[in-house]
């Protein structure tokens, strides 16, 4: 029991548990940065999960499947955007309705895919590198989507912080009136951001139905969309912290299961509470600096915008 050979599989499990959270949360982060609060992440994910599974099953290609998942997420996000951005419906209620709708729709359409299977996504294998002890399988032995999730977060961080597009997006989220006055198309930018969030939510769902547990089942997401939402808040709207949050949550979820296996004499319900409690505690610690958070929190989050208001 040197520990290391046990560490590698543990970390691999954590990566699988965290990746869907990271995708969905990264998408929602962009949506929220533009000032739109979409509480329907669960609905985006579950629709993406079914579409990806169905796409893969029919086409035989996981890549087409993931694209289907992303597309389904975009379509769901478009419904949300049309209602909240064009028709100025309340964002919180519409987001929740989107989840109810998504769960109902997928369970109706997905009944034909119960009990069938698809091929798992292949893992990267680089002779030599992937065989390095401990690090090899972790760094060089993942499926493509794990790398994609990090690329997405890095890309989002770069766009938000360093590019004009990011600046405009943040401006729209910080003050839609000022952004409008400066001539930026507030609604169109929010549409784009919401659809991006939809695509990412759909990809997160794809990861669930193609990699995490390669199957389709009703309510496959089992509440992960909600966790993703909480993680955006946790990250204080900063992509870097999103990685910390998603992996922290994923790690504690997995570690508590390991603790049970090792016979820790604490009722499992209390162990199951730990990911939630630790997330709260860490949030409290990082939230204490009020100024830092306000710099990032989109001031217009959840508010409707109409140019003539």
């Amino acid at each position: 029991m040197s520990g290391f050979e046990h560490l590698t599989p543990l970390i691999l499990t954590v990566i699988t548990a965290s990746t869907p959270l990271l995708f969905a949360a990264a998408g929602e982060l962009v949506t929220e940065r533009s000032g739109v609060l979409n509480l329907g992440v669960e609905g985006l994910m579950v629709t993406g999960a079914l579409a990806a599974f169905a796409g893969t099953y029919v086409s035989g290609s996981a890549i087409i499947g993931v694209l289907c998942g992303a597309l389904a997420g975009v379509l769901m996000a478009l419904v949300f955007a049309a209602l909240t951005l064009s028709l100025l419906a309340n964002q919180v209620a519409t987001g929740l309705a989107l989840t109810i709708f998504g769960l109902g729709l997928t369970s109706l359409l997905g009944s034909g895919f119960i009990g069938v299977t698809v091929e798992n996504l292949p893992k990267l294998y680089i002779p030599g590198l992937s065989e390095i002890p401990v690090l090899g399988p972790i760094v060089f032995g993942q499926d493509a989507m794990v790398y994609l999730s990090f690329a997405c977060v890095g890309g989002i961080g770069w766009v938000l912080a360093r590019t004009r597009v990011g600046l405009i997006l943040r401006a729209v989220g910080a003050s839609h009136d000022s952004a409008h006055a400066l001539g930026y198309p507030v609604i169109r930018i929010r549409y784009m951001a919401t659809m991006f969030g939809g695509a990412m939510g759909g990809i997160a769902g794809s990861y669930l139905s193609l990699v995490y547990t390669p199957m389709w089942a009703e309510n496959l997401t089992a509440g992960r969309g909600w966790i993703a939402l909480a993680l955006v808040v946790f990250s204080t709207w900063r992509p870097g912290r999103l990685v910390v949050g998603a992996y922290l949550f994923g790690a504690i979820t997995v570690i508590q299961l390991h603790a049970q296996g090792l016979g820790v004499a604490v009722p499992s319900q209390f162990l199951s509470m730990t990911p939630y409690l630790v997330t709260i505690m860490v949030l409290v610690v990082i939230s204490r600096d009020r100024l830092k958070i306000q710099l990032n929190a989109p001031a217009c989050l959840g508010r409707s915008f109409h140019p003539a208001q």
Partner: protein
Amino acid sequence: MLRSTLKTLALAAIGGAMLSVSAQAEPTKVGFIYVGPISDHGWSFRHDVGRLAIEKELGDKVKTSYVESVSEGPDAERVISQLASSGHKLIFTTSFGYMNPTLKVAKRFPGVKFEHATGYKQAANVATYSARFYEGRYVIGAIAGKMTKSNVIGYVGAYPIPEVVRGINAFLLGARSVNPKVSVKVVWVNSWYDPGKEADAAKALIDQGVDVLAQHTDSPAPLQVAEQRGIVGFGQASDNIAFAPKAQLTAIIDNWDKYYVERAKAVIDGSWKKGDVWGGLKSTMVSMAPYTNLPADVKAMAQKVEADIIAGKVHPFAGPIKDQSGALKAKAGETLDDGTLLGMNWYVEGVEGKLPQ
């Protein structure tokens, strides 16, 4: 004028309806309430298969309907009551949490027969039924005992309730009957159905060195993990060979068909009586999926254990049985009675970890 016309029409309609009743016997309505969606490929799905068996067997003598995904909270009583008041003569309430709602509704509808699964409270018009899944678990335990090399077997559990604990104990006793060195590690996921978490639990167990995996949760996810990681496992509730063509050794199948058809028939011919049926392998309420991916000798052994249980030659809970503290729970020659099994909340010797009390 209008009024009287309406009255005449209404009377005619009622008369017509009554005529049609006398012309052909009204089909007996049989209702079902499920805790999950019928697409869960597990618990609720198997009950629905039982419902379809009634339809197939009794044809137009019956009409069945169901309500799925009914939460065990305040909604259950309403749904059961709605089934009763809409003319259903026999109602199957297929989850433990429906016990008290079933009894409450049964009191208000003395003419309707109720069948509650896995509970322990009966009434004049409420029967209970359950399956001795532990017999199947003893069989898979014996298989696991033969197949394990590490002598540590993993078990993914939903909630620490007697039903699941009984299964774990029977599994371990089965394993120890062929391999006294076996121990079982249990991980609870606190959910009947969360594929992701079930998969994580399975991975955690495999990472801790188990080489055979058993589960008492509803999704095929743990079995899928077993397949991916190259170990072996067992299907739950349904035959899940499609999810794990190389890993599934067999599956314990819930098989309510025969019982449901019998009870529906009994209501139709008026012979229905309350009772408490607890069927096992012999009654086919529990049945084993084909034994696959096994060496010939292990397969033969499994078939023999199954046959011996059916013949009554082997009882999974035959003594001597010790609990974790070493205290003797059943002496040699004794078997644990059904009351003890029903409320089982202790682990037998060989299960690792402590059962939360």
